[in-house]
């Protein structure tokens, strides 16, 4: 058709981002006129995002093709496509959870900031140039700093925003310093050009390792891997709960695609260095996350530590550096999106009505709101890797990738960790399913139940039906592997 051929590849590559930008404009405009009907704004943005998602799913699927756009700034391939879909779905669910509450002022600013960070994440997923990468990461982070501190009257929220800002600023400065070495040695900012320089042996091994450490600091912050995880518990606990959920899923996914793409592209000629580094990070991240989760009394804080430990499991897949490994990591992130958003969603609903998110507030959930309790059950079981939910398959895939790559000891560390994890997850379930005294029925607004239903369906479908998603991931993982 004539009109389809008009836009160039470059234009198509950022079509969803343009859509997001328009959506921000409309939202801010509508916000002026519809000051009193905030929930309308929420639905408007959710529907707008869904439209973008539909366009992306319907027309922009790259299949097995890959090409670069905007002069090598962006890489359009199945991997970026897949992660952009994860991010947009995450944003839709976050918006749905954010409506209908009075913990913080749900406004056009809030939505605009959220959408701005989605643009950043989408660009992160595709970035293949140091400049683009850095700009995308900052575009993602700065709105999120504000959102984490969005409950302006709540001290812990403001504190969490500030903490996130300081930690983020520090790690991105270190990362930028690492980038400067790469530019200095190769004279180029394009990842593929840098890769050529490295494989030509023009960068000494010592500098390579230094750069690796510095850059991983920046990405490790995004995925909350040890030792860059310190911000996560405080921020997740203090931030508005939907934002905590968003940070732990969409933002983490964006961090992982950047990590995988950067490592696979730049250090394609000698992957051993980063594999060892990622293995060490994975071990430490799993152990720290799970052991500290055992001590937690607050549900959001516990979920923060559990989210750190899950980053560790995903790193097993990354560390294997194989196609199966990347596939496993991506599948894990897809499942984790629905799973963790459901868990944070339940935490959010309990928190808005009981005033706090202590684990003991879950007592008697099965009596007061059985539906909510079962949504919680499903998300927690998926987190602990129990079938028929998605967490089971993703965990098996990650472990399989580890074993295929010959890292049996790392997988055994993972096994021990999932054992520790099961302990605290089961304790959560016991609390939620213990009888307790009769408590008031929790109010669940339609947007929340819609979001929870989507999450639960996602968890169950991903846990039972595999073939369609795995074949998508084949393209995505092949793209990443072929960057070598």
């Amino acid at each position, binding site marked *: 058709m004539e009109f389809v051929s008009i836009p160039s590849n470059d234009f198509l590559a950022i079509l969803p981002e343009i859509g997001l930008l328009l959506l921000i404009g409309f939202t801010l405009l509508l916000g002026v006129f519809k000051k009193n009907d905030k929930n309308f704004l929420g639905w408007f943005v959710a529907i707008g995002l869904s439209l973008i998602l539909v366009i992306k799913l319907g027309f922009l699927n790259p299949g097995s093709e890959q090409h670069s756009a905007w002069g090598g700034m962006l890489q359009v391939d199945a991997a970026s496509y897949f992660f952009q879909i994860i991010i947009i779905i995450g944003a839709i669910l976050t918006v749905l959870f954010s409506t209908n509450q009075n913990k913080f002022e749900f406004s056009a600013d809030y939505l605009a900031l959220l959408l701005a960070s989605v643009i950043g994440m989408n660009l992160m997923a595709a970035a293949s140039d140091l400049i683009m990468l850095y700009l995308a990461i900052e575009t993602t982070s700065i709105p999120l700093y504000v959102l984490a501190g969005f409950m302006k009257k709540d001290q812990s929220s403001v504190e969490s925003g500030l903490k996130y800002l300081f930690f983020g600023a520090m790690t991105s400065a270190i990362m930028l310093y690492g980038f400067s070495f790469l530019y200095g040695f190769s004279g180029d900012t394009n990842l593929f050009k840098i890769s050529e320089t490295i494989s030509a042996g023009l960068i000494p091994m010592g500098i390579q390792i230094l750069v690796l450490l510095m850059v991983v600091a920046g990405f490790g912050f995004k995925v909350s891997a040890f030792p860059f995880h310190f911000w996560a518990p405080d921020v997740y606990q203090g931030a508005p709960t939907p934002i905590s959920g968003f940070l732990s899923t969409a933002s983490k996914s964006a961090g992982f695609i950047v990590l995988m793409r950067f490592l696979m592209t730049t250090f394609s000629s000698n992957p051993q260095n980063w594999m060892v580094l990622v293995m060490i990070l994975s071990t430490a991240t799993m152990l720290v996350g799970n052991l500290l989760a055992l001590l937690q009394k607050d549900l959001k804080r516990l979920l923060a530590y559990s989210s750190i430990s899950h980053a560790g499991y995903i790193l097993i897949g990354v560390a294997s550096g194989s196609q199966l490994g990347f596939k496993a990591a991506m599948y894990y992130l897809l499942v984790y999106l629905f799973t963790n958003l459901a868990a944070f969603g339940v935490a959010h609903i309990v928190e808005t009505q009981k005033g706090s998110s202590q684990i003991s507030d879950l007592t008697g959930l*099965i009596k007061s709101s*059985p539906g909510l309790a*079962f949504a919680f*059950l499903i998300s927690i*079981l998926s987190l*602990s*890797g*129990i*079938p*028929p939910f998605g967490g*089971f398959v993703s965990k*098996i895939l990650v*472990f*399989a990738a580890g*074993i*295929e790559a010959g890292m*049996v000891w790392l*997988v*055994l560390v993972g*096994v021990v960790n*999932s*054992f520790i994890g*099961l*302990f605290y997850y*089961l*304790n959560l*379930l*016991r609390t939620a*399913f*213990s*009888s307790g005294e009769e408590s008031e029925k929790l109010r669940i607004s339609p947007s929340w139940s819609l979001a929870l239903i989507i999450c639960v369906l996602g968890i169950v479908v991903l846990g039972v039906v*595999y*073939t369609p998603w*795995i*074949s998508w991931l*084949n393209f995505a993982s092949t793209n990443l592997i072929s960057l070598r």
Partner: protein
Amino acid sequence: MGFPILSILIFIPLFAGIAILIFGRKKPEAIRPVALVAASLVLVLTFILWATYSIENAGYQFVEQFSWLPELGISYHLGVDGISIAMLVLTGLVVFTGVLVSWKINDRPEEFFAYLMFLATSVLGVFSSLDLFMLFFFLEIAVFPKYLMIVIWGSPQTRVYGGMKLTLYLFIGTMFAIVGSLAIYFVSPERSFDLLILEKAGFAASVQKLWFPFIFLGFAILGGIFPFHSWAPDGHVAAPTAISMLLAGVEMKVGVFAALRVAIMLLPEGARYWSTWILVLATINVVYGAFIAMIQKDFKYVIGFSSVSHMGLVLIGFASLNYNGLLGAGLQMFSHGVMTALFFSIVGMVYDQTHTRDIASLGGLAKKMPFAAFGFIIAGLVSMGMPGLSGFIAEIPIYMGAWQVAPIVAIIAIISIVITAAYILLTIRKVFFGELPAQYEASVHDISTKDKIAIGLLSLFMIGIGLLPQLMVPLIESGVNHILALLGGV
């Protein structure tokens, strides 16, 4: 392919459970009938399988296969051999009687019966899986119903501890088996999780020796192998009656069944290499379990430890790796399942009325509940291996098999029967005979008709198999012959 009887068998309880969860709150009077109907259908279907399985043809029958994730060699593959049929019948019996004895549960019944149904699905699925991935899939579905049923309806003193201990042990066992299974998957020539393909894979001896312990021990933890047995008594005692029946009667069989199907059948070289160690551990199981059972003061713990002891016999049968041993092990899996279910159901009935499990404070209950006493005595005689009952048919081949490889093991195991007899007879005398304590004179009544049906049905099978071993022996034999062929005709 024909009629998908196995899928129907597996999914009946699943859908019944979901229906109960959804509609049970609004129609509480329908919960129990729905559960009973589902359980009866399962029982009838397992009988049909038993009756129509062709022993002459042997091998895996009623096979169903659909691709699930072909890329990784995962398929939805169901099929049963003689041993699985026996296990399915056992499951049908225990689930059916479990529903009957749980009739009185009034605290959140919709959840109780739904979880019971989910547990049934998990177990039926494991016994009919011919795909390794599917086997783990079904095996781990059981985690949450088990845990929740113990911590919600279990005995208040120990349920939190017992439930957590049981679940964690079973989970870590499964995880180790998964690691071992993935390891052999990646060295198999044709990457597939299909058990029939893996059976023919012909793994190198070094691979078999390395990974056999992971898989075997991982699964054997579920069967209560020493020194990883302590979850069994603690967990079974903490659980509500129907769950104790299912856990000890069926869930422990799931463990040893998977150990047989995956570890021994896929890695026969490994099994031969490690068989001495299994024999040693299993012998400790038998003797140690029996001795500990003898000194228990708690009625339910006696049965809990007797399970540990009897599961040791199954493992001895496996480790002997010969015709007699494996045949006996298969029969013992069935016989012990029925027997333990009966034991635990009667313990539950006694506790419901007396509110104590302290053996010393019980007595003379045979006057009040003669049918329960009858059932307990039958189960006791089975556990002692009395001729004419199923226990005898099962245990004699195990001793014969053990004698062929290590006479000393057979001798020790046979001596342990004396200990078993001692604790069983002591328990029977103290609980059911002698003086009836005054406080029970008025409060204890005879058990309900449903309880009697449950006891009667389970007893019937133990007597039936004892008197007519030809009902079960050829069935198990057909499964054993296949295993022997894989073992290379040892």
